[in-house]
């Protein structure tokens, strides 16, 4: 395959030069298309450089500094931001809360889209209606969804939307996000509702790729519906199921919108997650200042944890993802 730069270069090569090579001068570089390459790459290099590559490098620098937007000094000893975070009791509360959120989200949010997608894939008529309905919550902007649930659905009074519905079944009104015990499950409930549609669509796309011959073959072997789901459908989805599992963990480990907008981390720190703590370190420290070093140190620790977790996960499941 000849790329354009090679072709232009070939044309520029003088017949007399040994092995068809020209001396490298700025003029030949421009003629070979080097300048054009650079001009086309410029927007990408500038934007990624300033807003992605440089900040990544900078985060390592900031994590070794004491910064509060005004004064910047090197941390002494250089790991002091990391020890500050590890010695902060709120950090361990945040770790526990984030783990709890991720766990609840896995228990409720992981199997649900699988079940719904498998059911929906068997629909014969008006399949699109099912998909559109399932995806609608994903389209609602997250802020709108959270505020709607917070101010109306989770209203803890007797006439909140959910409590009214519970009242029909003679269940007493629940405190929802206002109680330390029910707050986190309430957040997970909303988050699951908001995210399930996206995962369902991914599974539906994967399900259309399952070869019908496999079901034919399974039936010849005498498999019933459950056996077909267990031995054909789920194994065929294995690759995508493995990916959505780890992606969900990575996503829930960085949950911010729900705890911030619903409860600001309360009541009594029962929904303070790691991202909320990063935000608090950086922008609303209790002493009025801000601790960007600690916030960045915590960000890096979270990223490192997720990277190691993903690496271990993909190593452990390597054999499973192949058929």
């Amino acid at each position: 395959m000849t790329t354009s730069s090679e072709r232009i270069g070939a044309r520029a090569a003088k017949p007399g030069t040994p092995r068809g090579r020209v001396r490298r001068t700025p003029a030949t570089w421009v003629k070979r298309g080097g300048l054009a390459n650079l001009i086309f790459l410029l927007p990408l290099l500038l934007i990624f450089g300033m807003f992605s590559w440089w900040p990544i490098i900078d985060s390592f620098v900031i994590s070794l500094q004491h910064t509060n937007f005004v004064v910047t000094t090197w941390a002494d000893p250089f790991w002091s931001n990391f020890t500050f975070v590890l010695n902060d009791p709120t950090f361990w509360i945040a770790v526990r809360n984030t783990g709890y959120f991720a766990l609840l989200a896995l228990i409720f949010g992981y199997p649900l889209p699988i079940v719904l997608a498998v059911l929906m894939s068997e629909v014969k008529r008006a399949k699109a209606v099912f998909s559109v309905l399932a995806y609608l919550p994903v389209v609602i902007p997250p802020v709108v969804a959270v505020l709607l649930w917070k101010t109306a659905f989770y209203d803890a009074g007797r006439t909140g939307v959910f409590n009214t519905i519970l009242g029909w079944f003679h269940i007493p009104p629940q405190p929802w996000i206002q109680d330390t015990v029910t707050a986190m499950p309430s957040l997970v409930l909303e988050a699951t509702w908001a995210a399930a549609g996206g995962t369902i669509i991914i599974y539906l796309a994967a399900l259309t790729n399952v070869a019908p011959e496999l079901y034919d073959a399974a039936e010849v072997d005498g498999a019933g519906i459950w056996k077909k789901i267990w031995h054909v459908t789920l194994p065929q989805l294995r690759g995508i199921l493995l990916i959505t599992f780890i992606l969900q963990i990575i996503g829930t480990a960085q949950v911010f919108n729900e705890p911030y907008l619903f409860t600001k981390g309360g009541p009594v720190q029962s929904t303070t997650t790691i991202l909320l703590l990063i935000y608090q370190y950086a922008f609303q420290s209790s002493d009025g200042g801000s601790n960007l070093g600690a916030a960045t140190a915590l960000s890096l620790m979270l990223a490192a944890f997720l990277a190691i977790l993903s690496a271990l996960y993909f190593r452990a499941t390597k054999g499973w993802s192949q058929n």
Partner: protein
Amino acid sequence: MTATPLVSPDEVALSQKPAQEVNGRLRRVSRRAAHEPSTDRGIVSTADWRRTRVRFPLVTLHLILLIVLIIAGLLPILWLLKSALTSTQDTLTAPLAIFPHGITWDNVAQAFGVNIQIQNYFLNTIWVAVGEWVVQIVVATTGGFALSVLKPKYGRFISGLVLATLFLPAVVLLIPLYLTILHPLVIGGSLLNTFWAVWLPSGASAFNVVLVMRFFDGLPREIFEAAETDGAGPFRLFWSIVLPMSKPIIGVVTVFAVINAWKDYLWPMLVLPGGVNPASVQPLSVRLPNIVGQTELGPLIASLAISTLIPIILFLIFQRTFLSGGGFGGAVKG
């Protein structure tokens, strides 16, 4: 796989049934089935679908599923619209009653009134979306063109650097990116409370670049070579050949750029705190949480409903783009 005694005899019975029963409807169905290719089937075979014992529970299950999806997907939006047109008093005392005292446009009027000024924030959101769209399209198409059509020697290295950011948790960037906005490297001055603070970083989307590169890779090379033989340089090639051929992928990037601009919260909240006049820069997502404490429920719900209109209309128009699974990255972002 072990054979279950439950199924095989049934299958046998089924194959004999149409011959025994002289039922016109049944025979017609079975004849159609004979012509049906097996590729049309799902988990339940076409033959099983015709059996009442399988069909009845399945159809019932699908009806239940439909009801559940209507409750979870449609009712919250309908409730939002209903409550936007119901007085705060009615919504508070009987949230599930449908217009107990008729429709009122008071809430909507208040949302557009002096206290909320929803129209300003609405326009800001559109402005944010348009700017992010332009930046994302420029970066992704020019970058994708250079990396997958022009292919300079160092291109693989740059592709690698772009790809690496795809796997990076967004949280790592939060603080350093904020500092970059406060003190931009080359530009100087602060971008805080300007639209540039949300526009420019949105362009650093590895997802877009990968999407566009994959599309460009699929374009036929012969066309590029023919254009070159006809004397087209790289700029002509980009503008007159590649861009016109890229409408589908530009469409996909556009839809997700607009939707994501509408959904973003944490980043715009950090870099668009508003200052003296939040109405001049803040998008809806940043403004709405700030008015919760000082607004009655009715006007708040009306504001929420107004904020949801554009995304839902876009979704209904571009259903296919959303439902084709192309939004993998957006869907799992959370």
